[in-house]
């Protein structure tokens, strides 16, 4: 064998794992990481009537829910920067939130029983978002009432801003907040998704 033959054979293998082998290896890595406490953020995609969602959770609880108007790269980059870069796709860790969301979309669930992680929201914004939980399923509030519930009745624009940047939509029901004149107001996932969530919650008898 010449040096050239040796070099050529060395350069031709081994081949990178692919297909099912690679998928199995990745899944096993994520599960072991989670089991050994090395995984700070687990995430998984899921389908929904509002399009694909990305759901992410820490060991504390769900920390992020994104619609597909935000790219997964942008969502993961933000999590890496603001929570931790130890992030892996780990669907098994998101089973409970995904199941509850599916029940919600089927109209079978009106209240979520999922721990949340507020790492991405602080201070007044967090209080505003927590206040939206006081708006019952199927009902609505407005920006002023939410600002008031959060302890600062005058901070209507700040409340609007907090709602527009809600990192955990649907689970934190900012979609239930309208303008005082009854118009829709903003929504991180876009007005169409906000409307559809409100229609879902009003039920099949809703004429709108």
């Amino acid at each position, binding site marked *: 064998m010449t040096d050239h033959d040796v070099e050529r054979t*060395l350069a031709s293998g081994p081949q990178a794992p692919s297909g099912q082998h690679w998928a199995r290896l990745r899944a096993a890595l994520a599960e072991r990481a989670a089991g050994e406490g090395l995984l700070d953020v687990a995430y998984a995609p899921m389908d929904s009537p509002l399009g694909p969602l990305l759901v992410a959770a820490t060991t504390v609880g769900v920390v992020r829910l994104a619609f597909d108007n935000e790219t997964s790269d942008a969502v993961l980059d933000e999590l*890496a920067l603001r929570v931790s*870069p130890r992030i892996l796709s780990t669907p098994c860790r998101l089973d409970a939130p995904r199941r509850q969301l599916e029940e919600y979309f089927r109209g079978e669930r009106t209240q979520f029983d999922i721990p949340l992680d507020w790492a991405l929201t602080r201070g007044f914004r967090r209080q505003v978002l927590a206040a939206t939980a006081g708006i019952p399923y199927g009902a609505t509030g407005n920006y002023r009432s939410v600002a008031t519930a959060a302890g600062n009745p005058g901070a209507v624009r700040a409340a609007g801003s907090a709602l527009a940047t809600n990192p955990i939509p649907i689970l934190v029901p900012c979609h239930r907040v309208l303008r005082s004149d009854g118009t829709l107001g903003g929504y991180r996932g876009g007005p169409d998704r906000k409307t559809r969530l409100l229609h879902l919650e009003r039920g099949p008898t809703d004429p709108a």
Partner: protein
Amino acid sequence: MSGLLPFERVVDRYGGDVWRFCASQVGVDPADDLFQDTMLAALDAYPRLRDPNAVKAWLLRIAARKAVDLFRTAARAPAAVADPDPGAVPGPQPPDERLWEQVRALPVKQRQAVALRYVLDLDHAGIATVMHTGTEAARRNVFEGVRSLRARLDD
């Protein structure tokens, strides 16, 4: 911590190359376990990584170190590294597999340097970075490794 990719993306970008390096060092069958151990160790230390641009070299360094640990273990538990069964009658083997066996039989520095050069396509500076040597030492390790392989395969 800022400037670090999500680790999922690290696995996307470099996982294949890390696995191939693992397979070059310990054989294909043990490569999955070595890959897992490497990536878990990397994940553990990831937030403390000082140079986000040097992720690949850092991963390969971890893999190299863990492969060396496996070789030490192989002295006691032969299945840790893929070696020919010493009691078996040598039968026909794919010629490539003979070469890879001889790679695994090289002294550690040559074994690493040869794989980094030809499997991962690193230049001598890149090899030097992974192996914490000078560039000239890297070049020498590659050269002597290839020469040694050729000599063993000509036997």
